[in-house]
C-alpha cells in the first residue's frame, strides 16, 4: 500500500525517467553545444580553445548579416500585424455568419497549414516570378513585400484557428448586453468581443512572429538578392563552413525568440491575473 507508484505516475517510474533524460539530452545538448561553441576561441568548431566574444563582435560588424537580421525582424513584425487582423477577421466571419460555401472556405483556410512547405515555396516562387512579378529594386521595406505576403499566407490561418477556438466559448449575451446598454455594433465589438479574444490574439501573434522569424523554406524561394533574411543568410554562411560566427548568429536568434516568448507569456499572465 506504501510507495508503489500508480500506473500513471510517469515521473516515478524509472524507465520513464530514463526516457525523459534521453529526450532532454537529444533535445537540448545540440543547442547547448551550439551556444557554448559560439564563445570558442577557434576557427573551427571541434575543440574548445578558450573563451572569446570575438565572434559576436564580428557578427555585429557584419553588415550583410545585420541587414538580414533587420529584414527578418521587419518581416516578422509586419507579418504578425497583418496575420492578426486577417486571422481574427476570418475567425469572426466563420464563427458569426452562415453563408454559402462556408465549409469550403473553412477547409481551404487550413490548407496552408497542411501543404508541405516546399510546395508552398515553389508555388510562391512561380507566383512571384510569373503571375505577379514583384520588382526587386523597390526601396527597402517595400522590397520585402513578396516575402511578407508569403509569410502572411501561412501565418494567418494559425491565428484564425486559435481565435476561432476561443470564440466558441464567447457568451453572445455579453455582446447583446453591451448593445442594450447603448453601445453601437462597433463599440460592442471593441469593448466586449476583442477583450474576450485577447488571449487568442496574443497566442496568435506569438505563433505568427516565431513562424515568420525562423521560416527558411518558403523565404528561400521568395527572397531576392537584396532581400535576404536571417535564416537564409545563416544557411548561406553554413555552405562555406560552420564557423563560430554562425554559432553566434544562431545563438542570437535563439535568445531573441526565447526572450520574446517569455515577454509575451509574462504579459498574458499579467492580463489574466489583474
Amino acid at each position, binding site marked *: 500500500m506504501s510507495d508503489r507508484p500508480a500506473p500513471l505516475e510517469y515521473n516515478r517510474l524509472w524507465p520513464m525517467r530514463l526516457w525523459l533524460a534521453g529526450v532532454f539530452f537529444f533535445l537540448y545538448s545540440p543547442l547547448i553545444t551550439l551556444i557554448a561553441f559560439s564563445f570558442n576561441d577557434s576557427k573551427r568548431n571541434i575543440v574548445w580553445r578558450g573563451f572569446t566574444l570575438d565572434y559576436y563582435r564580428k557578427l555585429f560588424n557584419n553588415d550583410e548579416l545585420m541587414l538580414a537580421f533587420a529584414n527578418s525582424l521587419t518581416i516578422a513584425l509586419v507579418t504578425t500585424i497583418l496575420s492578426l487582423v486577417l486571422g481574427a477577421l476570418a475567425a469572426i466571419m466563420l464563427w458569426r455568419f452562415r453563408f454559402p460555401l462556408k465549409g469550403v472556405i473553412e477547409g481551404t483556410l487550413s490548407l496552408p497549414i497542411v501543404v508541405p512547405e516546399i510546395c508552398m515555396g515553389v508555388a510562391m516562387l512561380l507566383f512571384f516570378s510569373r503571375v505577379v512579378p514583384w520588382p526587386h529594386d523597390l526601396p527597402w521595406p517595400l522590397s520585402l513585400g513578396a516575402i511578407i505576403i508569403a509569410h502572411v499566407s501561412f501565418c494567418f490561418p494559425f491565428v484564425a484557428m486559435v481565435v476561432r477556438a476561443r470564440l466558441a466559448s464567447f457568451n453572445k449575451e455579453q455582446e447583446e448586453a453591451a*448593445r*442594450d446598454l447603448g453601445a*453601437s455594433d462597433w463599440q460592442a465589438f471593441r*469593448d466586449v468581443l476583442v477583450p*474576450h479574444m485577447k488571449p487568442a490574439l496574443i497566442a496568435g501573434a506569438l505563433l505568427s512572429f516565431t513562424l515568420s522569424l525562423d521560416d527558411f523554406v518558403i523565404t528561400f524561394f521568395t527572397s531576392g538578392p537584396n532581400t535576404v533574411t536571417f535564416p537564409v543568410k545563416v544557411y548561406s554562411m553554413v555552405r562555406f563552413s560552420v564557423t563560430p560566427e554562425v554559432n553566434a548568429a544562431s545563438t542570437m536568434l535563439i535568445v531573441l525568440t526565447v526572450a520574446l516568448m517569455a515577454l509575451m507569456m509574462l504579459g498574458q499572465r499579467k492580463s489574466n491575473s489583474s
Partner: protein
Amino acid sequence: MDQLAQRTQDAAAHKPIISFRNIVKRFGSMTAVDNVSLDIMPGEFFALLGPSGCGKTTLLRMLAGFEVPTEGSVLIDGQDMGETPPNKRPVNMVFQSYAVFPHMNVADNVAYGLKIDGLPKDEIKARVQEALDLVQLGPLAARKPDQLSGGQRQRVALARALIKRPKVLLLDEPLSALDAKLREAMRFELSQLQQKVGITFIMVTHDQDEALAIASRIAVMHKGAIAQLGTPSDLYEFPASRFVADFIGSVNMFEGTLIKDGADEAVIACPDLAPYSVHLPHSAPGSAGASVWVAIRPEKLNLHKNASEPPAVPDCPPAHNVARGEIKEISYLGDSSIFHVQLSSGQLLRVSRPNRSRYEQEHFGWGDTVWVSWAGSSPVVLLS
C-alpha cells in the same frame, strides 16, 4: 392583495408604457409569436409566463430590439419602435446569464452604459455609487466578476441596467441561475427593488411560483399566443382553460357532462367520480349536455375518515361533491402533506393538507380508505 389591486388600478389610469399591437414573429416556417396584443401599464411588475418555446422570450427580445416583429408594432411610451436598434431604446435588460463583462470590475461594469453615453466622469462616479448602493454592492466595487457569487453577479447586472434609468426594465429568467434558497430571497428583493425605483419591470419566466410570487400581472403564453392575462389570484382561482389551470399550480381534472344548468345550480356528471356527481351553487358555462372539464385545486379538497355514508357537504344535496378512494401515497412536504387518493375508477386525486399541528389529530395512513369532499364553490368548470 389590496396593494396589488391598488397598483393595478393606479396603472389603469395612465396610458400604457408598452403596447404590443398584433405582433407576429416568424422564424422561417416556425411561428414564434402569433398575433399578440398586449398593453403594460407604468409601474407594473409584469410577468410573461409559459413553457419553453411559447414565445415569451421572443416577445421580450422584441422589446429590447434584438428581434424585429414580422408583423405588427411595438410601442414604448407611445413611440413606435419600428427597427430602432437596441442601443437606441429606452429599455434595459438583465440577461439570463447576467452577461457581466468578465474583463471589467464591478464598478466598470456598472459604469459601462454611462461611459458609452459620454457622461462627465464626476456624474458617472456618483451614479455608479448610487446604483451599487441600491443593490448593496458598494463594498465590492473593485471586485472582478469571477470573484462574485451568482447572486452578486445578478446584482451587478441589475445595477448596470438600472443606472441607465430605463423606462422599462426587462428581466429574462432572472432567477433561474440561482439556487433554491437564494431564489426565494431574490424574489422578495426584486419586488422591493421595483417599488424603490418605481419603474416598470417585465419579467420572462417559466416558473409559475416565481411569477405568482413577484408579478402584479401575468400573461400566460402558450404556443405563441396569450392563453390568459390577469393577476396571480385571477389565474390561480379563475383559470380560463385547462392549459392555464394545469400550468399554474397543480390541479385535479375531471371530464364530465353538464346534466343540469340552472340559474343558481348546476350539476355535472363525471364518469371518474361516479356514482357521485359535482354540484355547483351557481350556473356553469355551456348549456346542458355540453362536455366540460371540472378542475379542483388539491388544497380545496378535504379528507374524511372512512364511514359507510358519504360526509355531508354544506349547502349541497347529499351524495354530491364527494368521492371515495384509497390512499396510495403520502408526500410529506413539511408545511403540508400531499395525499394521492385512488378512486375506484382508477383516477388519482391529489389532496393537500396543511400540517397545522405537530401531532396529527386525525391520522391518515397508506392504504386507508377515505372520503374526499369539496365545497360547491371550489370547482372551476372549463370548456376548453
